Structure formats: C-alpha cells, structure tokens
C-alpha cells in the first residue's frame, strides 16, 4: 500500500504563549480542509524510532499553507521539539488533514456553541475563522476555560472579533488566576457557570466541545442533563502523553 505521509515545509513559527507556538506548514498539493480537522506529525530519530502525534489545525482556508498551535507538555516526546527547536525551513512528515466528523461546514445554518478547555481551543478557532470568512450569518459563541490570562491562545484576534463581529461572542472562565478587575474569583468550571455562558437549549445550537478527556466528558454530561440534545453535541478529547496529540 502506498503511504499517506507527505513532507511539509515549516514556513513560520510564532509564540502563542510562554509554552506554545503557532507553526505554519506549507504542504504541496494541499487542497483545502474542513474547520476542525487535524494532522498527524511523525518524527523519526536517527535510530529509526518514530513518534506520531496529532495536532489540530487552527487556520481556515489558506492555499497550501495550514497552521497548527502546539502546547508544550512537560515530559512530552514531541511537543518540546515543535515548540522550542523546530525552525523555519525545516521539514516535517505529516498525514492529513484528517477527521470528517468534528468539523463545521460553512453551509451549516444552525447557531453554534463552542466550548474549549485549554488548548482545546485550537480546532474551535479554525471554525471561528472559517465562519468569519464565510457569508454564513449564524451566531457563534465560544466559552473558553483556561488557567490564567497568560495561557490564552489567539487573545488579540478573539478580542477584536468579540468587539467587531456581529455574529461572534467569546466568554472566559479562569480556573487559577483572573485578569485585573475581573468580577469573580478564579474557579474551575461548574455546571452553573457553563449554562450561564452558553447559547440556550432552545433553539438547540450545534455544540462542539474540545479539551482533555475529563473536561469534555464532564461538560457533555452537564449539557445533556440541562436538556441539550445529545445528537447536537460533538466532542473531541485529547490527552497528553498518549499515542496521539
């Protein structure tokens, strides 16, 4: 069988936070992708040992170039290299973009609620960008749960969109440290906070939840208990040191 792996050129690397970086990859023959998809990256050591990890695409609709945002994991095998060492001009082996289920299509007329835990915001940002670029007038709302203001991805862009876009709103939950003059103390997400900061269950929005497994499963359970139809909730889990992501 022929391989699905191909070579991508690193064309940009911009720090997103102290521990993360957005990396631009030029992929010859890249023919579009759906917002929410991811790529697999394969690193091969000199002795032939390989490690494969998945990273969600953050960008939307760029010709032959896509962007991923990688968060460095303590003791990670792949992410420290991608965040600290990889340089513009380097090449990477990639597979994809893949995954045709956790995706938003510009033809979707439904309102959309996005719920991100930490770096789970990455595929949701691709959806936000695709939605902004499209003529689709549907309402998008993002609830972004993060440790502290310093750990937020895409902060300037999200702030600008929140202010200027008539069809996009972002809300934040800070779990460890809040910004100056924030009206509440840091606290982990609760069902009450969740439900107070998302689109109502009627009319049912399409809901995309992405984060670590515990975050995703807890949020999804709260949503179902609150009457959001299970069929409208799409989830994507990621782990740290596992075989993927």
């Amino acid at each position: 069988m022929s391989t699905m792996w191909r070579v991508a050129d690193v064309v940009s690397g911009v720090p997103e936070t102290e521990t993360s970086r957005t990396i631009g990859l030029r992929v010859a023959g890249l023919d579009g992708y759906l917002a929410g998809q991811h790529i697999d990256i394969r690193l091969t050591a000199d002795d032939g040992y390989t490690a494969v990890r998945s990273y969600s695409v953050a960008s939307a609709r760029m010709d032959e170039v896509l962007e991923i945002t990688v968060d460095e994991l303590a003791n990670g095998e792949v992410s420290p290299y991608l965040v600290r060492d990889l340089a513009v001009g380097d090449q990477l082996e990639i597979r994809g973009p893949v995954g045709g289920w956790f995706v938003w299509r510009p033809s979707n007329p439904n309102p959309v609620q996005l719920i991100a835990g930490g770096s789970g915001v990455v595929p949701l940002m691709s959806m936000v960008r695709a939605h902004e670029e499209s003529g689709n007038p549907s309402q998008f709302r993002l609830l972004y749960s993060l440790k502290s203001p310093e750990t937020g991805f895409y902060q300037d862009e999200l702030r600008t969109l929140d202010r200027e876009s008539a069809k996009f709103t972002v809300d934040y939950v800070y779990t460890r440290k809040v910004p100056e003059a924030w009206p509440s103390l840091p606290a982990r997400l609760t069902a009450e906070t969740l439900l107070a900061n998302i689109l109502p269950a009627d009319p049912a929005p399409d809901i995309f939840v992405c984060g670590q497994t515990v975050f995703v499963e807890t949020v999804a359970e709260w949503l179902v208990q609150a009457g959001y139809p299970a069929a409208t909730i799409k989830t994507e889990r990621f782990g740290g040191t596992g075989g993927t992501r």
Partner: protein
Amino acid sequence: MSGNSGAARGSEDPRFEDQDIAGTAGNPISHLDGNAVAGALWELFRFDIIAAIGRCRHCGAVSVVAQASVYSDAPGIVVRCRSCEGVLLRLVETPTRYWLDVSGLSYLQIDREG
C-alpha cells in the same frame, strides 16, 4: 489520580487538575475518542471511517466511530463501544503488515460522499 469518588463535581473537583494523562477517577487508563485515530485508520481504509456509523456486536449500540472510546497507549489501537466498553476494533501495525480485527462491529454505515 487521587482516590476521589467520581460523584464529586464542581469547583473543587481534583479531576480538573491539569495532568498529562486523560484518565478519569476510577478509570486510570487514559482514553481518547475516535477522532484521535482518524489518521491511522484513514491510512488503512482510505476513507474517513471515523465519520461512519457503526453497530456494536456486543450490545447493539449504534454510534459514530468518532465517539467510540480509543485506547492508544499500547502496542496497537483498541476502539471500544462507549455504551458497553466491548471491543469494536483492534489494529496493530508492524513494519510489514497491518493486523486488523473488526469482529466487534456488526455493520458500518458509510457516507458515500465522505
């Protein structure tokens, strides 16, 4: 993980501590979902199987493959039914071969446009 019971929820729930594992209380083995193996399965099947709908042979649950539980911290990939935890699919890759077991799926419904 701590020994906290799975019933505890809310702002003090230690399961929300940031960790590099995806395990939950009472289930320390990390699991992800079908999205995580989209690439590996695409390489093998050459269509987007995670967007397909599958029926579990063990309990009869019908679900999109993307929502099945995936255990990939292993020599291979194990995909389990989210309803009954029965094994739906196993895949092991060697340098020369794929070993594939789909005996836990009684059917797959695949979108022709996918």
